[in-house]
C-alpha cells in the first residue's frame, strides 16, 4: 500500500514479515496457550485488513462487525444443522455468506460517503445484532451457538494438535490475504479505490464509476471480515451476537488506526498489540484494561499518526539517515 517511491526497502520488509511469521509459528510450540492467542490475532488481523481496505477509500464503517458475525454464524449454523464439517468448508461458507451479504448491503451503502456511510453501516449492523439477539429460537440469543471442531482437509485432529493445525492454517491465510489485499491495492481498481478518498469528482471525470469501484472494495472487505469471522468462530468454538455489536466494529477501526492504516502489516501489528494487552489485562489488570487501551490509542493518535507501523518506519528512516 506504499508508493513505489518509498518501497526501496522491500527486501527488508519481506525479511521482517517472514521473520514475524516464523516467530508466530514457533512461539506456541514453547508456550502452548499462545497458539490460540496468535490464531485470534492473525484471524482478527484478516478482518482488520478488510477495514483497512475501506479506509483507503477514506470511508470508515462503524458496522463491519456485521460481516464478521455473518462469517461466524454461517459456520455456527452449518454445525448446528448439518453436523460437523471441514475447516475448508467452514471458511468457504463464512466468506461466501459475508460476500453475499456485503454485495447486497453494499448496493445501498456505496451511495453514501463519510459520516453517512458510517452511520448506515452502523444501522444495518445494529439491525443484524438485534435479530441475532431476538431470534432466540434460531440463534440461542446472547449465549450464542457452539461451533463444533471441524476436520482440516479431511483429517480429524486431536484437541492438542488441532490448535496448532488451526494456527498454521490461519497464518497461511493471513499471509495469502495480505498478499491478495496488497495486490488489489496496487492494481488499477485498488488505486481507483484510494482515489475516492482524495478526489472522487476527478475519478468520475476520468469516466470511472466511483460507486462501482467502492462496491468492489466493499465486497472484498466484507469477504475478509467473513473469513476472519469464520476463523475466530472456529478458534473460539462459538459465535455470539457480541461478534456483531457496534463496539466490535469500533474495535476493528481502533485496531486499524492503532497498527497503522497504510499497510497490511499494520493490521496484524495492531491486532497483536490489542489482543495481547487485553489478554494480559483481563488476567492481571481486570479493573483497568479498557482504561489502558484507551490511553494507548489516544497516545498513538496524538504522537504517532501513522500507527505502530509508522513508528517502525520512522525509526528505520532515522537509522538510515544516521548512516
Amino acid at each position, binding site marked *: 500500500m506504499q*508508493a*513505489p*517511491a518509498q518501497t526501496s526497502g522491500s527486501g527488508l520488509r519481506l525479511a521482517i514479515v517472514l521473520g514475524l511469521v516464523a516467530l508466530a509459528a514457533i512461539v506456541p510450540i514453547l508456550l502452548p496457550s499462545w497458539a490460540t492467542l496468535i490464531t485470534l490475532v492473525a484471524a482478527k488481523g484478516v478482518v482488520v485488513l478488510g477495514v483497512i481496505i475501506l479506509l483507503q477509500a477514506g470511508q470508515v464503517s462503524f458496522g463491519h462487525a456485521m460481516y464478521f458475525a455473518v462469517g461466524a454464524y454461517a459456520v455456527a449454523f452449518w454445525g448446528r444443522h448439518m453436523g460437523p464439517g471441514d475447516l475448508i468448508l467452514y471458511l468457504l461458507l463464512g466468506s461466501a455468506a459475508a460476500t453475499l451479504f456485503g454485495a447486497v448491503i453494499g448496493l445501498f451503502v456505496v451511495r453514501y460517503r463519510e459520516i453517512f456511510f458510517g452511520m448506515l453501516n452502523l444501522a444495518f449492523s445494529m439491525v443484524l445484532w438485534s435479530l441475532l439477539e431476538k431470534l432466540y429460537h434460531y440463534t440461542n440469543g446472547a449465549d450464542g451457538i457452539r461451533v463444533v471442531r471441524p476436520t482440516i482437509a479431511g483429517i480429524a485432529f486431536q484437541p492438542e494438535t488441532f490448535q496448532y493445525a488451526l494456527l498454521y492454517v490461519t497464518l497461511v491465510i493471513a499471509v495469502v490475504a495480505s498478499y491478495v489485499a496488497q*495486490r*488489489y491495492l*496496487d*492494481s*488499477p*481498481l*485498488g*488505486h*481507483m479505490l*484510494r*482515489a475516492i*478518498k*482524495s*478526489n472522487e*469528482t*476527478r*475519478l*468520475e*471525470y*476520468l*469516466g*470511472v*464509476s466511483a460507486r462501482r469501484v467502492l462496491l*468492489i472494495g466493499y465486497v*472484498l472487505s466484507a469477504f475478509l471480515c467473513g473469513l476472519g469471522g469464520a476463523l475466530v468462530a472456529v478458534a473460539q468454538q462459538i459465535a455470539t451476537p457480541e461478534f456483531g455489536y457496534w463496539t466490535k466494529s469500533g474495535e476493528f477501526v481502533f485496531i486499524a488506526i492503532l497498527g497503522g492504516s497504510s499497510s497490511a502489516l499494520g493490521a496484524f501489528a495492531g491486532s497483536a498489540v490489542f489482543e495481547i494487552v487485553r489478554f494480559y489485562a483481563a488476567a492481571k489488570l481486570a479493573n483497568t484494561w479498557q482504561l489502558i487501551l484507551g490511553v494507548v490509542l489516544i497516545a498513538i493518535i496524538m504522537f504517532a499518526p501513522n500507527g505502530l507501523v509508522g513508528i517502525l518506519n520512522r525509526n528505520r528512516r532515522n537509522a538510515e539517515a544516521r548512516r
Partner: protein
Amino acid sequence: MSAPLLQARGLEIRFGGVVAADGVDLDVIEGENLAIIGPNGAGKTTFLNISTGYLKPLAGTVTFLGQDITRLPPRAITRLGIARAFQIPQLFLEQTVMENMMIAAAARSGETSGWRRLLDRPEREEMLRLLDSVGVAAFAERRAHELPEGQRKLVDIALALALKPRLLLMDEPTSGVASSEKMGVMDILVAALAREKVSSVFVEHDMDMVERYAHRVAVWSSGRIQTVGPPAQVLGDPEVRQRVIGI
C-alpha cells in the same frame, strides 16, 4: 463549416434567485479552440458543469456528436470523449503523479483488474511522454500534494489529455501558473491539442491569451451568449470591451 461537435440549445439554470443561464445556445466546432469570456460570476463555469453532466439544466439540451447528453452523469459523458480540466486542479493528492496518470490510462482502457499492478501497465511510457510534453515529467514519482500549484494545474490538464478525448473543456488553464511561463505552457498545450486532434473550450480572463490562442470567442453575460466570433472581431467590439473586460 463542418457539423458542430458539441451543441447547446436553450440552456436555462438558476441558483436561488440568480439566473446563470437563460436560453444559452452555443456550438463547438470540430478542431477549434473556443474561448468563453465574461464578467465574474456570469456562469461560464456553469456551462462546463452542464456540458459534463455535473449540473442538470432546468431546460435546454446539450448534444455531443449528435447524441443528447443532457441527463448523463459525468463519467458517461467522459467515456463519450469529453474530458475536463479544472480551475482548481483536481488530483489524487495522496498518489504519485505517475499513479494519477496511470489511473487515467486504466480508466481510458476500461481496465477493471483487481490483480495486475497498475504500474505494470503498458501505457507507462506514453504517460511519461505526456507529462514531458506539458513539462512536468520530473515530478512523475512525487506525490501530487507535494507539487506547487502551477505544476498541479499542468498535471490536471495532462490527466484530461491522457483520456485521449475528442473535446477538452478547460477552466482558466493557466491560472496558478507563473505569469512568465503562461505563454510557454499554452504554446505546448495548443500544440498538443492540434497534434492529438482535440477540440477545446476554455474559460479565460486573460485577453492576451484569448487573442493569441482562441479560434473563436464567445461572450457570456447576463445569462446569455452575447456574441460569438473570431477574437479580433469580438475583442474589438467596444461594447464587449466595456461590459466584459471593463476597459
